[in-house]
């Protein structure tokens, strides 16, 4: 190893989560904060998201991705966070010894705290098992977003989009505006996967058809995509007989989900939640391994960057406190996702400060409520006019409510 470094806080991944965590860790008193980024610039996916809608929660206005990223990039620079670009983390031990690979050779970093903010990747054709030939012209939506918005490369002119995830919807509009024909968006589920706002401004505004309970069952074309076969699916995702139809296109875009990049998390041996695939954390975003924190999309896939930012700022502050004092409040109150919820984060809380809980429901529902209970008694109730799996629910539980928590247990559920 060519060099050994010491840092209070090392943040792995310089996307929106890592930028926010690093900036706040520095502000909270960590003297040396390292931001480790494998790309040649920070900002992550925001650099290619030229559309607007970022920042309404944090700044009260709708910024574009590059504008939002620039604010946090300036912030880490102003606060003297050390950013190492083109630096690839190849290992992290339980004792927070980080090994990085860069053109300076292999280096180790002994970190007081480590923040994991690696983000997520897109699900691919291979992962969803789309049958057919293997021609050129099958891309994930995020890759096309990168080619079009960063690299000035057009992938096709007649496009079918599989999956109604947000990036897919955004790309439908983008392609349409740029002169491509967007034949349709096909979604295997009976409801859209993207948020409602994108259904309006990306599809309805441009009369792009959305076919629900429909998927691509075969890809055609030997050299380049020449078309796809669509078919309807039944309630158990089985193909409905007699519903196959061929649609001509030169490009198939996949927007079929995001997978948190937890390879490093798993390698360290951090306990994860099978439903989020991310780490199990407390209200300081501490993982099961002391001194290692997790936030942003690697922890849970967010649909609003503002919330990833807010979450990561807290993680960054906690990481700084841990690194400088070795102390964070114990989180003894166990939080359980009850009826109607896929998961709730954090998994444990300390009861010392207000907590922003994040959760997702199993299904779309109307006029229900999110109910916090402890010892069978209601702690808090929030009316939910509308909820859907595509929309993360965020509920604050104020400090004042904590006195109603008994036996160190809290359940969050959907109720009436």
């Amino acid at each position, binding site marked *: 190893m060519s060099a050994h470094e010491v840092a209070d806080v090392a943040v792995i991944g310089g996307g929106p989560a890592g930028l926010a965590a690093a900036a706040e860790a520095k502000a909270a008193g960590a003297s040396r904060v390292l931001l480790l980024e494998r790309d040649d610039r920070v900002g992550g996916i925001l650099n290619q998201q*030229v*559309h*607007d*809608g970022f920042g*309404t*929660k944090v700044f*009260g206005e*709708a*910024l*574009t*991705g*590059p*504008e939002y990223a*620039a604010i946090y990039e300036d912030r880490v620079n102003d606060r003297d966070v050390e950013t190492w670009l083109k630096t690839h983390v190849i290992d992290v031990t339980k004792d927070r010894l980080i090994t990085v690979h860069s053109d300076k050779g292999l280096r180790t970093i002994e970190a007081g705290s480590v923040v994991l903010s690696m983000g997520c990747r897109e699900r691919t054709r291979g992962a969803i098992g789309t049958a057919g030939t293997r021609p050129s012209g099958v891309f994930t939506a995020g890759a096309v977003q990168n080619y079009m*918005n*960063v*690299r*000035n490369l057009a992938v096709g002119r007649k496009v079918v989009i599989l999956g109604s995830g*947000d990036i897919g919807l955004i790309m439908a509009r*983008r392609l349409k*505006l*740029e*002169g491509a024909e967007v034949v349709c968006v096909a979604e295997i589920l009976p409801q859209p996967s993207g*948020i*409602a*706002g*994108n*259904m*309006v*401004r990306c599809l309805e*505004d441009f009369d792009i058809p959305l076919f629900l309970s429909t998927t691509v069952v075969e890809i055609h074309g030997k050299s380049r995509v020449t078309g796809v076969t669509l078919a309807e699916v039944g309630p158990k995702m089985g193909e409905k007989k007699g519903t196959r139809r061929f649609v001509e296109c030169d490009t198939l875009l996949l927007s079929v989900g995001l997978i948190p990049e937890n390879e490093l998390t798993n390698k360290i041996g951090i306990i994860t939640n099978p439903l989020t695939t991310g780490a199990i954390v407390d209200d300081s975003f501490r993982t099961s391994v002391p001194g290692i924190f997790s936030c942003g999309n690697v922890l849970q896939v967010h*649909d*609003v960057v*503002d919330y990833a930012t807010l979450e990561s700022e807290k993680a960054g502050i906690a990481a700084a406190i841990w690194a400088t004092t070795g102390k964070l409040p114990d989180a003894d109150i166990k939080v359980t996702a009850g009826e109607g919820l896929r998961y709730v984060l954090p998994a444990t809380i300390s009861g010392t400060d207000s907590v922003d809980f994040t959760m997702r429901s199993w299904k779309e529902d109307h006029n229900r409520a999110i109910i916090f209970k402890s010892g069978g008694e209601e702690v808090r109730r929030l009316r939910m*006019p*509308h909820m859907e799996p595509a*929309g993360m629910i965020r509920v604050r539980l104020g400090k004042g409510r904590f006195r109603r928590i008994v036996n160190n247990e809290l359940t969050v559920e959907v109720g009436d």
Partner: protein
Amino acid sequence: MNTTLICIVCPVSCPCDVEWTQEDGVIKVENNQCKLAFEYVEGELFDPRRMLTTSVPVDGGNWPLVSVKTHVPIPKDQMLEAMKAIEGIRAEAPIKVGDVIVPDLLGTGSDLVATRNVTTV
């Protein structure tokens, strides 16, 4: 009249219940999480507008494209027309966030401005 409109200002996508009349405009908005919804709903009912975001090729920059937006929303039905209007536009590095690339796009009163810094190479 009562209408449900999905607020599209941010990804939260509040499904707003709107009470309105042609004469009095928007009377009441419910189910919204923030105040931006009121303005959106009013606009959507009487003068629907959208932000146009796209990019423009750059000569001599560290990025081949500069991302741009209309500094205020433009009428929704002029989106494609606006794209046509900027079809041949190229910009030259260096560019700073907020630099006007096309002033008063299509006479809408909205400038097309840069949303990314591009430095010269």
